[in-house]
């Protein structure tokens, strides 16, 4: 996350600031009787340990950071915090003034005078990642452990930084300060907001300061947004000099103009591109047909970003020449992901289509916030092309994307559509749930022993197909077969055994991924006296344990909207009768819906199930509804069909 921005001069004259900082950081804070006697923290009842106090004073003038930690040990498990590891990059960082102590519950203080180990973490090519490692002796439940140190960074350099207010431990009180580097422009922001009752960071006597208290311990949960996004934090971003735009609109206009120049230079129309377009499109082609053809051409370019990661020697030996522009891409036949996207842009422009490049920020690790004015967060790009009055977004830089689809992490994100005036903000569209489907069709016979035997066909379309193709693009047929079989079995009831029987098309972008199987579910119908019972839900394994816990801290976050539809046709043994069918089930909470129904005609049972997810983010205050919904799904899947065996042998127990 830290990125060097600019070299700073005249450091020596500013050393006096260091003395000021040192005076603050080198004093142990007084300990209150309440801290000594504390047995638990009511706001963190099960906590093994909590931060009583944290302080980070960063000084970008003299490139140092003073860190102070005071931790209260509340349970035996909390004693692990007496093991301290401080990583640093040898030669770049220096850890100094490291001191530690243990305060017993009776107030007695033991200064740490043990060994501080310099432990190598990673060593390569003269770069050594090390850690200062030590353990505090005599730590018991009720003890307070304290340590402080100073981290020095290369003199004269300033880095973007952040105050991380959220930590794995509850924080009772924390104090942060930053002295800004001279001659650099600094912006700061707190994207998630701040903990309750925390005043925003403010300038105070030449420092930016913040004090906070009662910050909950950070927890991780299933289906939560990227961890970093959910942490309380203050982000600091430096610009190279103070002449840079301070206003958000002006900043992005400048970014947009600069980026547009680079893109236009790369994708400028010339004879080679025009010839390529002429080769690909016919005079009578509609704009849409033209765009399809050019998109398909761009997808044929060898995509270096999605190949197996070569070693340095392999890369060096291949000696791939750099692509300076779209002509080079055409000539070389390869490019990285962004190069392919820019190449498509060049083709579309050469075909006289209204297209532009949109810089976007992927949402897998981060949620873009343009107020942060950090252009690096716009980490990829797509093409927007106007076709028949609407805008279609394309990213040929990610393989196996059908025309008009973006990879899930580029959907629903903010982007800067470039033009010569600096561009305009827009949001990439989310695909509808119907665009990304898993459809399972199972046609089987029920044997007198209660086993289902027959065929299954699974059709993956849209994003459901593309992520699978991307994930297994470098695997062989055996690995792909195992994946598809496990994918189906993993979502089915225990005891389902499938065997892939066709050769799915792993290379297409436009065609669904279709997998055909021999299907067997042993003992699916279970005896119940004179009757036998068969659950409605043959699939639904992935919903079985979703949101099983009652408490929720974070919002729910899904990659994309989808539909999972199942059609089962079960032929009953001769003479067998359906005694009872469950009522059709419907659960609809707008953001998700579920339907299941079973019908019987002429000895054949038809079961339909549909699960639709229509959202990607749900606020945690709606968690109970979501949990209830998935409980309803599970209840529906467990509905039973009662069958009365006929003259044929009765349904035996499963095995």
């Amino acid at each position, binding site marked *: 996350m830290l990125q060097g921005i600019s070299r700073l001069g005249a450091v020596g004259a500013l050393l006096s600031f260091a003395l000021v900082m040192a005076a603050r950081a080198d004093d142990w804070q007084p300990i209150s009787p309440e801290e000594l006697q504390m047995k638990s923290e009511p706001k963190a009842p099960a906590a093994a340990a909590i931060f009583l106090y944290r302080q980070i004073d960063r000084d970008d003038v003299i490139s140092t950071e003073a860190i102070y930690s005071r931790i209260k040990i509340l349970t035996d498990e909390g004693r692990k915090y007496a093991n301290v590891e401080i990583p640093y990059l040898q030669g770049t960082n220096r850890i100094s003034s490291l001191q530690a102590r243990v305060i017993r519950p009776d107030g007695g203080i033991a200064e740490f005078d043990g060994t501080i180990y310099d432990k190598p973490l990673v060593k390569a090519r003269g770069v050594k990642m090390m850690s200062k490692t030590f353990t505090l002796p005599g*730590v018991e439940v009720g003890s307070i452990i304290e340590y402080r140190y100073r981290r020095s960074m290369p003199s004269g350099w300033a880095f973007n930084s952040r105050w991380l207010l959220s930590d794995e431990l509850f924080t009772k009180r924390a104090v942060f300060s930053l002295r800004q580097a001279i001659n650099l422009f600094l912006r700061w922001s707190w994207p998630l907001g701040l903990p309750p009752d925390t005043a925003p960071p403010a300038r105070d006597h030449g420092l930016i300061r913040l004090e906070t208290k009662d910050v909950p311990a950070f927890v991780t949960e299933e289906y939560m947004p990227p961890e970093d996004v959910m942490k309380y934090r203050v982000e600091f971003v430096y610009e190279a000099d103070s002449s840079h735009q301070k206003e958000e609109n002006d900043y992005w206009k400048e970014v947009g103009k600069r980026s547009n120049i680079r893109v236009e230079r790369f994708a400028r129309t010339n004879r080679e591109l025009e010839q390529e377009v002429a080769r690909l499109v016919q005079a009578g082609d509609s704009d849409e047909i033209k765009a399809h053809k050019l998109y398909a051409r761009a997808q044929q370019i060898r995509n270096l970003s999605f190949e197996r990661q070569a070693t340095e020697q392999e890369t060096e030996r291949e000696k791939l020449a750099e692509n300076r522009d779209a002509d080079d891409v055409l000539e070389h036949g390869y490019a990285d992901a962004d190069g392919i996207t820019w190449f498509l842009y060049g083709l579309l422009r050469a075909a006289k289509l209204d297209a532009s490049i949109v810089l976007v920020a992927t949402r897998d690790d981060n949620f873009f916030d343009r107020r942060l004015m950090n252009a690096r967060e716009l980490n990829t790009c797509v093409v927007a092309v106007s076709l028949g009055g609407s805008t279609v977004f394309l990213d040929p830089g990610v393989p196996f994307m059908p025309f008009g689809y973006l990879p899930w992490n580029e959907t629903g994100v903010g982007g800067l559509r470039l033009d010569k005036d600096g561009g305009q903000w827009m949001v990439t569209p989310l695909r509808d749930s119907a665009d990304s489907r898993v459809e399972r069709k199972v046609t089987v016979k029920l044997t007198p022993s209660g086993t289902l035997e027959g065929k299954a066909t699974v059709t993956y379309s849209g994003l459901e197909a593309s992520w699978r193709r991307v994930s297994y693009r470098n695997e*062989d047929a055996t690995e792909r077969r195992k994946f598809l079989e496990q994918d189906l079995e993993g979502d089915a009831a225990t005891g389902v055994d499938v065997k892939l029987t066709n050769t799915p098309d792993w290379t297409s972008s436009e065609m669904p991924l279709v997998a055909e199987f021999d299907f067997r579910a042993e003992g699916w119908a279970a005896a119940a006296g004179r009757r036998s019972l068969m659950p409605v839900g043959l699939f639904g394994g992935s919903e079985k344990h979703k949101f099983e816990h009652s408490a929720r801290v974070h919002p729910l976050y899904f990659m994309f909207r989808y539909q999972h539809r199942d059609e089962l046709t079960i032929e009953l043994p001769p003479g067998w009768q359906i005694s*009872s069918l469950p009522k059709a089930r419907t659960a609809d909470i707008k953001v998700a819906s579920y339907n299941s129904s079973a019908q019987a005609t002429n000895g054949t049972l038809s079961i339909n199930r549909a699960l639709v997810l229509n959202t990607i983010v749900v606020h945690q205050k709606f968690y109970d509804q979501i949990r209830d919904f998935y409980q309803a799904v599970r209840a529906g899947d467990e509905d039973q069909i009662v069958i009365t065996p006929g003259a044929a042998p009765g349904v035996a127990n499963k095995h």
Partner: protein
Amino acid sequence: MRLDKRFGVLLAAYACMHGPATWATANAPDWMRAQLSAQLPAQDEETNAVVLYSEIQLTVLAVGKMKRLDRRVYKILRSNGESHGVVFADFGSQSRITAMHGWSIPAQGKDFEVKDKEIFETGISNVDGGELISDVRRKVMRIPASVPGSIIGYEIERELSPYEMTDEWEIQDNVPVRETRYTVRLPPSWSYKVFWINHGETAPTEVAPGQWRWIATDLKPIKLEQRMPPWQGIAARMVLSLQPPDGKGGGFQSWQEVGTWYLGLANGRRDASPVIHQKVQELTAAAADPLSKMRALAAFVQKDIRYVAIELGVGGVQPHAASEVLAHGYGDCKDKVTLLSSMLKDIGIESHYVLINTERGAVAAGTPPNMGFNHAIIAIQLPAGIDKAKLPASIAHQNLGALLFFDPTHTLIPLGYLPGALQANYGMLATPTGGELIALPQAPSAMNGVERTAKLTLDENGTLSGDVHEVWTGDGAAVQRYALRVAQQDVDQIKPIESMLSHSLSTFQILHASVKNLRVMGEPLIWNYTVEIPRYPRIAGDLLIIRPRVLGSMSSGLLETKEPREQPIEFEAPVRNSDVFEIALPAGYVPDSLPPAVNEDLGSIAYHSSTSFKGNVLRYTRTLEVKELSIPVAKVEALKQFYRVIENDERNSTLLKTGK
């Protein structure tokens, strides 16, 4: 730029550090090129690579000084065989890597050679797990073009200065091996002794004076499976014990020697001190009898001495002094044993080190004397008058009388019981007369598991509700305690129960829950909770479908695999779990039929269940008991059917009809 993230952080960091460079091509060595025409060993479609050739050359220089050269050549067959091209080599105080080279011969194009500067080092200690520091580190190299069709190979040269003059030849791999060789060069008048493990005895060839070579060919891979025995317990290996002419400082010839050597290392470490004596007095002041005193001391070392491992040089095997461990309040397994032993001595009770491997089967009755251990526990000589029936971790020793084994490192298993992995295991008991390989006891299955009882009522609206009472003992209690103790928030504490319920119930609500004896180690852990399950019965016309097995699962999908099982199955510990569910039905409802009773007994594992109806109460009882810890491959199919019967039983329902 979007990059494919296939490799870990370390490799990514390594790649980032690379600067521009130019590379000269270098031919792979002759011993690698000789494999180009080698016939591939037998394989199936899942085999991702084969070992065409491997060799070890051990050169003995003097006592405590050897050189070893390892060479290995793979042919990569499938894309996921690329992992064989990432080579790890650990080194530390007893071994120094003097050279490490890697090559590849691609299917097309020139050979590659890994350069020294491409090799990086990492530390491997886990601070969160209590391993503060160790001098064992790892060199890592990635061989270029480790792709299907390539032949890759590496060689590693080490200088060894071992504590014991033994070496080991691992003959098998998890992929097929075409040919593997082991060569030893001895100084004049030295001798060797060979121990074969999981492999028939093979005679060497004296290829030169003082130089012997063993060759093995066409070895089947060892398939990695869940709950399989440890690698050391099933893989073909040869252990070589080396003897100098005067017999001094050579490889261990007997377990007695191993014990004597270890006690030499620990000599003086258990010596008493005034501080230890004072602490013992303080801890045992309220204890009325020897067993109570032992419990007090054991609990102190187990709980109050934090697990912290500082393993530098000989510190990897030599314990710290007891007084030092007490003063710091921390130590590793052998340090904890040392302090406890010293404290027990202070109350007049003798005790001994037991070195053990935490994977049962890694060291067995036939294992040659060596140091294949990774853990230390204590054997306490029980004074007369203690009821050993309540201490299942005890045995009667021929010379030492009653011995009680205890693991002071495991913070959740009290004195008297051993963690499952250590039961029926083999350890080296180190006494003043020397070492002895000894079998540790196996506890009765009734001392580990959960007894779950639920008294529930089904109302007219279909809501099933009532109280569940769970009594957890042994390893089961330890697992529950661990989950409860590491919970970050109070709401996390109920999560294990929520997870268990959600495996059985589509809809439920826990109305109240409490736990007893969370920190009272000598008592069972008890969960009491009240559960409400709306719409529990399914409606089928005028019938209600109700599943008597309300919650909990005893079945297993372990053997539901496409490929046939190749390895035995190892259970962690003997265990006995039981359920008793009583459901009071609404007035007028009676079962149309009851699920059949199940009685399956394979000898080593048994399951019994039955459903009955009396008054208005539907009663379901069942038990699953694991009596033996290893199931041989020959019985795997029977075990698979056994689990399917359990799963059937768990799914079985009763149809209720109204008797009104």
